[in-house]
């Protein structure tokens, strides 16, 4: 799909030092060496044109995948950089690939802009770049353009990564937050809250040790399998910040419907439950990085569930509730205890309740 066939620069620069300094952001040879040695060598692909500030993609080749271009961006600022189940590099690829895939797009290309704090170990940077490269390769996407900034110590927390993705949507797919209809069934592809719990434990502030790992995963394969089985999927969204509670509220508001979920049907890992009980948190609001909320027509529910469960990342998929004609925007939960409660948007973030 490359247009301008270009002799690839084989004489990549080599970093001579073990830690990044502001010199590596100055635009000169040190910066070129950093980019070549860490990023270009890891991301290596035909479209990545480190000689230019832009990648060039053949529109006709893109059009063979479908009729609409999907375009999405996310910044990744996770702390710590490495956590059980993943790292910021893996996250930066999976998150953006997932944001393309949930709209029905085939993820194709990513850009990657990093802001690095001076003092970062080059080895750490390499590990992140390798993780990005491996995740991108597995997801079938190429990182085709990028940018590197170095800021003084204390001006950023180690590294921030912004990836922007483009993909192409097949004709006929119409997936949107405004498409849910009363009667639709709400599905999730597995247990909820793992990422949020894993990160809060990994951060160490609460001195909790937990076996929970982040669910950080590329869901494009799972979603492709689902769309192959049920092209009429109404809505999909990855339940990241704010958890499934937030996605359900967004869906209910945009589609002007009510949603009712069942606590007994909502899968939560025992470790996540323990974590939430200790800190007084609600797992419905914890972040996920490998979970999607799906709405399908009632007649498609069984096929959708079967398609999800046939994929390794959907083994624990469940139907957790349904769309109703109740008060527009209202999300409620039938509790395991037989009661019923509202599941509203959070105002800010959840804070540990202790007292």
């Amino acid at each position, binding site marked *: 799909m490359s247009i301008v066939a270009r002799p690839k620069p084989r004489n990549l620069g080599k970093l001579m030092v073990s830690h990044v300094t502001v010199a590596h952001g100055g635009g000169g040879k040190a910066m070129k060496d950093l980019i070549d040695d860490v990023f270009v060598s890891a991301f290596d692909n035909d479209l990545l044109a480190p000689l230019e500030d832009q990648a060039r993609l053949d529109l006709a080749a893109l059009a063979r995948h479908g009729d609409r271009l999907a375009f999405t961006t996310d910044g990744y600022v996770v702390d710590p950089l490495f956590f059980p189940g993943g790292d910021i590099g893996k996250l930066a690829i999976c998150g953006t690939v997932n944001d393309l895939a949930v709209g029905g797009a085939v993820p194709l290309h990513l850009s990657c802009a990093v802001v690095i704090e001076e003092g970062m170990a080059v080895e750490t940077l390499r590990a992140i770049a390798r993780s990005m490269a491996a995740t991108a390769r597995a997801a079938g996407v190429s990182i085709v353009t990028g940018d590197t900034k170095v800021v003084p110590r204390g001006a950023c927390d180690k590294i921030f990564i912004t990836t922007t993705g483009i993909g192409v949507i097949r004709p006929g797919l119409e997936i949107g937050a405004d498409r849910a209809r009363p009667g639709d069934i709400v599905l999730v592809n597995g247990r909820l809250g793992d990422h949020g719990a894993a990160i809060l434990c990994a951060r160490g502030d609460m001195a909790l*040790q937990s*076996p929970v790992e982040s669910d950080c995963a590329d869901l494009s394969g799972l979603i492709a399998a689902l769309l192959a089985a049920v092209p009429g999927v109404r809505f999909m969204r990855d339940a990241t910040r704010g958890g499934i509670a937030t996605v359900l509220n967004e869906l209910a508001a945009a589609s002007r419907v009510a949603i009712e979920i069942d606590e007994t049907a909502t899968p939560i890992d025992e470790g996540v439950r323990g974590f939430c*009980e*200790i800190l007084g948190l609600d797992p419905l609001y914890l972040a996920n990085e490998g979970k999607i909320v799906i709405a399908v027509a009632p007649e498609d529910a069984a096929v959708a569930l079967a398609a999800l469960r046939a994929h390794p990342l959907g083994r624990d998929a469940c139907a957790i509730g349904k769309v109703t004609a109740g008060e527009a925007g209202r999300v409620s939960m039938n509790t395991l205890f037989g009661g019923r409660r509202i599941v509203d948007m959070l105002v800010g973030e959840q804070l540990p*309740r202790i007292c």
Partner: protein
Amino acid sequence: MCLGIPGRIVSIDDAENRLATVDVGGVRRQINIACIVDAEHPPEACVGDWVLVHVGFAMSRIDEAQAAETLRILAELGEAESEIEAMRMTAAS
């Protein structure tokens, strides 16, 4: 107020300073057990204890017999209901 959660003490980390590790659904953290030890129940005896944990302190040892008794009362209520139900069913049939 006063969020408390049952957990099980899995190890004593520092008997002198009354520090132990508690497990809650697989999540562990170090807590202070000063409020649940005394001459008769020294730190060493606490491993395996179920305790009520609040802000990093074990505030009470859970009384298993009392817990069972509470559940027994509730179970009986259910049984009583079932019996009544059963009686009703019988009467109706």
